[in-house]
């Protein structure tokens, strides 16, 4: 089983690749502290669960500014971006990130079932609770995002 540091390295590489290839964002690592969210009074959290050889959850927290850039880059800034598009882009980002990460971590042999991502609004007062030793932060086009993950061996293994 991979250790936490190895997992973090893979998560960093996959996140950067997905955001750069799919959303044309410039991604750089950031300190994993709640303060990177600055004065944002609210954020959004997208969580996605997977089941298979390992079970786990990935959660992504980002401010509205990140959603704006993400949706604009994916759809093209000349198009009208609706509120639904911003949240849908975050949901799809979680889906793409999870799928790529599972293959990167465990190869192509295991079969995983991925549950539809869920999104909720996160008040600034709760952002600190999201952080743990398994949180990695990035700046994507200067907008902060934080990813927290968990994984455990499945009983079915």
């Amino acid at each position, binding site marked *: 089983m991979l250790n936490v540091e190895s997992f973090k390295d893979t998560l960093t590489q996959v996140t950067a690749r997905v955001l750069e*290839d*799919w959303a044309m964002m410039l991604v750089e690592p950031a300190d994993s502290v709640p303060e990177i969210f600055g004065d944002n009074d609210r954020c959004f959290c997208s969580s996605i669960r997977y089941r298979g050889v390992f079970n786990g959850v990935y959660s992504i927290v980002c401010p509205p500014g990140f959603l704006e850039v993400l949706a604009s880059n994916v759809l093209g800034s000349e198009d009208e971006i609706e509120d639904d*598009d911003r949240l849908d882009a975050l949901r799809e980002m979680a*889906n*793409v990130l999870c*799928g*790529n990460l599972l293959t990167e971590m465990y190869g192509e*042999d295991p*079969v*995983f079932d991925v549950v539809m991502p869920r999104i909720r609004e996160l008040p600034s007062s709760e952002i600190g609770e999201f952080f743990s030793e398994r949180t990695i932060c990035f700046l994507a086009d200067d907008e902060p995002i934080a990813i927290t993950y968990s994984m455990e061996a499945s009983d079915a293994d």
Partner: protein
Amino acid sequence: MAYNFLLVDDSKVVRKALRKTLSMTDLEVGELHEAENGLQAFEVLRSTWVDVIFLDINMPVMNGMEFMEQLRLDEELKETPVIVVSTEGSKERRERLDELRVRVYLRKPVSPEAIVESVTDVLKG
């Protein structure tokens, strides 16, 4: 000759991005239909002619694997070409998609160039 496409994905953003990519190519694009899942896709296919289907795998109601299984059993629709665009990475599921005669498998995130290339290949037969 203009070609009709059906874009099947539960993400509206993905459908919009595919629609935009197709409309910006040199391909003669006729009608662009959309569906949020396999069940809706069958409703579209029963009411209009579609030349190529873009299909996601991980969807609610009827997922892409279930859709493919039913499509290939349908006497009227079984020859419709399908391009899968998905995050699915399991070899077992991809082999099953090969057996179900999926013409092209594209792994998300996918570039506009890859979309155009795959459509061109499929339309050439």
